[in-house]
């Protein structure tokens, strides 16, 4: 068995509830309803994470603002020495909460947008007036003094507007813009054939992002990664299973990544029953894909094996039925055809109205 390194980052998924219905959401389509962890349980998780070596916490979901104890949890995280980041849609953020979050010591807010223009943005989010509320949230965040970064998930229906998205982020004075190509898990996997852009679209987008990154150096950090379906090689998912990163989901299950709960045949331990340190170090699920021993060929003898770690276990499970296989996003995978078929089928004949919108739990 490999010896566990220490984790750096905890993603605290406080709830799966969300006011938006984005069809690219990576939340599970059917979440097991065990109820959400309470405040005291979360406080213990945060303190245990800090003791385990975690340096940063991301509050996520669903929409973490749905929880009234968010401010209290941010405070506990800061008192435990953690860097705190709130990942939010911005809906239901008001002046009082923005101020209280700042006073609790929140370091950064990552606000999501669906597009640069309100009409398209609201159609993607599936909520009327959502974009307008987000603009208001951006203003409240700036006034609160907390650093603002933007996240826009890219797909067929908004990627052609990338130039406008970058201008928009500049206007909002964001310090960082994450252009996140859709990852096909959860709801997004259900909508994969509709959301996936064409190869031409992703190539143009990459050039626009690169030019903007040069132009805005030192002003706004721009993150754009070529999507793994198009890249030929897999993403270094989570920088390795159980290596630097852990997720605690709303019901307290501890996962190596937010979507791992969907992998058939793996049992994830819960903070209601076990200390976080035990789960990280000793649990079967966290050790299952640590290191390189578990790897099949072509990963096992690949010079990239400790760079991309064989790609994503969730994606291997989703596409081949076996999480222990090489990620089919890799062109060396014997199952790479499963990815190529989806990419090659991409065309413009689809419409937004064909999408399956996320339902709330």
């Amino acid at each position, binding site marked *: 068995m490999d010896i566990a390194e220490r984790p750096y980052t905890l993603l605290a998924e406080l709830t799966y509830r969300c006011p938006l219905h984005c069809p690219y959401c990576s939340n599970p389509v059917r979440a097991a309803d065990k109820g959400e962890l309470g405040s005291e349980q979360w406080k213990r998780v945060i303190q245990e994470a*800090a003791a385990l070596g975690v*340096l940063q916490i991301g509050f996520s979901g669903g929409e973490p603002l749905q929880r009234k104890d968010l401010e209290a949890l941010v405070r506990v995280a800061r008192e435990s020495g953690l*860097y705190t980041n709130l990942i939010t849609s911005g809906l239901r953020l008001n002046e009082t909460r923005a101020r209280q979050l700042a006073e609790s010591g929140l*370091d950064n807010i990552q606000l999501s947008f669906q597009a640069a223009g309100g009409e398209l943005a609201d159609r993607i989010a599936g909520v009327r007036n959502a974009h307008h509320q987000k603009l208001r949230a951006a203003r409240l965040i700036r006034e609160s003094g907390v650093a603002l970064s933007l996240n826009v998930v890219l797909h067929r229906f908004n990627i052609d507007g990338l130039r406008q998205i970058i201008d928009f982020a500049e206007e909002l004075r964001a310090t960082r813009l994450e252009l996140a190509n859709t990852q096909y898990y959860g709801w997004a996997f259900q909508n994969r054939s509709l959301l996936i852009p064409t190869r031409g679209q992703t190539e143009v987008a990459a050039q626009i992002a690169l030019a903007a990154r040069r132009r805005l*150096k*030192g002003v706004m950090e721009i993150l754009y990664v070529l999507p793994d379906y198009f890249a030929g090689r897999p993403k270094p998912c989570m920088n390795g299973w159980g290596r630097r990163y852990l997720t605690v989901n709303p019901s307290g299950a501890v996962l190596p990544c937010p979507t791992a709960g969907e992998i058939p045949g793996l049992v994830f331990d819960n903070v209601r029953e076990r200390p976080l340190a035990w789960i990280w170090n000793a649990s079967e699920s966290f050790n299952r894909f640590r290191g390189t021993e578990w790897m099949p060929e072509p990963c096992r003898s690949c010079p990239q094996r400790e760079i991309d770690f064989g790609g994503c276990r969730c994606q291997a499970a989703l596409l081949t039925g076996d999480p222990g296989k090489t990620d089919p996003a890799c062109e060396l995978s014997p199952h790479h055809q499963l990815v190529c078929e989806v990419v090659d089928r991409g065309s413009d004949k689809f419409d937004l109205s064909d999408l399956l919108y996320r339902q709330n739990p």
Partner: protein
Amino acid sequence: MELAASNNRPCLAKRVRLQTDPISGNPVLLLPESVMVLNQTGYEILRLCDGTHTVSQIIQDLENQYPAAGPILAREIFQYLEAISQKGLIEWT
């Protein structure tokens, strides 16, 4: 190199936090999505990026701390500040 001019005052960006890692004792720079483990010199420079010290004062301070380093130290500090600035991790006043 205009920003790292001698009289300018660098300040850590709002989204950045400099602290000591309680487990390793190493200085670290914390960002929304990453952790930068710093060497001692990097830490000594960034510690002084508080919006009150000028680049000249930072150089002076480090020269006092490392008298054996010689003139190469100033150039290294300029380069370091320029690189960190390009990443948007410090602002200038």
